[in-house]
């Protein structure tokens, strides 16, 4: 009985740890704005803490912006990033073990654009 309890506790702890670090890591990919010329690269560092998401995102490792309002609901991942004039709102879903796919809305002071994003886990 004692052994079973111990095993169950380990399993529960491992499951919690696995869930907690589910999205934590570096993700990369690109997006192309609808009607745009070219793809914009994305390097995103995510840090999951329960249902909260923090980290940074940007076009290259040397140019990163903080993630704001990051939240996870089931397989849905949402967060926002402000890079100068544009506010990026990501609405992603897990489309595989190491893949996030979804929509991106970009809002400037007088413009609104949309894009499809695909991110893959790097680490």
């Amino acid at each position, binding site marked *: 009985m004692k052994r079973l309890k111990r095993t169950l506790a380990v399993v529960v702890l491992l499951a919690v740890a696995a869930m907690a670090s589910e999205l934590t890591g570096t993700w990369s990919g690109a997006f192309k704005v609808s009607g*745009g010329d070219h793809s914009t690269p994305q390097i995103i560092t995510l840090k999951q803490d329960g249902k909260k998401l923090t980290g*940074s995102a940007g076009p290259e490792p*040397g140019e*990163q912006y*903080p*993630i704001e309002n990051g939240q996870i609901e089931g397989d849905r991942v949402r967060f926002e990033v402000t890079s*100068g004039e544009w506010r990026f709102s990501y609405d992603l879903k897990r489309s595989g073990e190491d893949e996030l796919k979804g929509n991106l809305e970009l809002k400037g002071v*007088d413009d609104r654009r949309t894009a499809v994003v695909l991110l893959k886990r790097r680490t």
Partner: protein
Amino acid sequence: MRRLILSVHLSVALVGGVFILVLGLTGSVLVFEPELDRLFHPHLSYVKPSGNVLSLEEIGGAVSKQFSGEPIVAYLPSETADLSSQVILPRGIVCVNQYTGEILGMRTRGQSIFGLARDFHVRLASGDVGRIVMRWSGVAMLVSLASGLYLWWPGRRLGIGGGWRSVRFWFDVHNSVGILSLAPLLILAVTGTVIGFEDQASSFLGKLTGAGEASARQSVARRQTVPAAPATTSELISPQVITPDRAVAIARAQMPGAIPYRVQMPRYGGAYRVNLDLPGDRVAGGRNLIAIDQSSGTVIFSTRSSDLSSSERILATNEAIHTGEAFGMPSRIVAWLTCVIVPVQVISGLWLWLRRKRHARS
């Protein structure tokens, strides 16, 4: 041959006319976008110059007080004494009186009438398909202008005759306006088509000027000097030692004579990023950028318009010519007049075609 060219001129105009009309109408709005924007938002745009200009830190303090400490993304210092300064926040842009610190109001994010005009001008507000249609409309305009010149040449008629309802009147309007505005129309069509096919143009110019190598060298140099990626949000918001005003002073010292028009905070991008406008720089967009370390005040990297490769410079100049930015107000007025002429040409051409069709039937 003449008949073939006429049929090309008519066919291209019939197929592409409506899109060329959209290019002209939206272009006429976009040329004076900043002025029109201020006209629609005078209370946010204008201030009465009085006394000394507050420092960026003081302006930021006033904004933070009003917006409960929401982080400042960037400062947009005033361009002229009677225009307000702006402060970018994640949720929108705050307009501030730089003399008193008074908050004039906030512009929230989202599409405005000007954003919509730009969307129609570039991609017919229809994504990738619209983008293709509009870039080929530029080519259609070029074909239309070249064929129009060919058709006009033998008679070389200039001047307007007949009553305004007569075929003669509209034929003369189409011919005379077309030939008098040919040069600026051609410039707008060529520069617009190059912008539409920028990727192809860039690759072609790169091969022609051998700029690929230079560009690669520059980007390697840049990569070597950028700071390492911050791993977490807390690293991005590590305490800054120097103020935004100090960062501006450092940037100015690096580029004497240049006017700073944007100061991005270290929280957003890892370092102070100061964009500067160099008077007489006939290239589109901000090409002068100095990144400054927030703790030590050292320049991490800088990019200048003089660093542009030949092909990048050609494309940036091309864009400045297209927008009318290249030679200031005179070239913007010419660009606006040219845009306004486009509907005249499309409508007069359509009218002539309809009359010709009706005449052929009867």
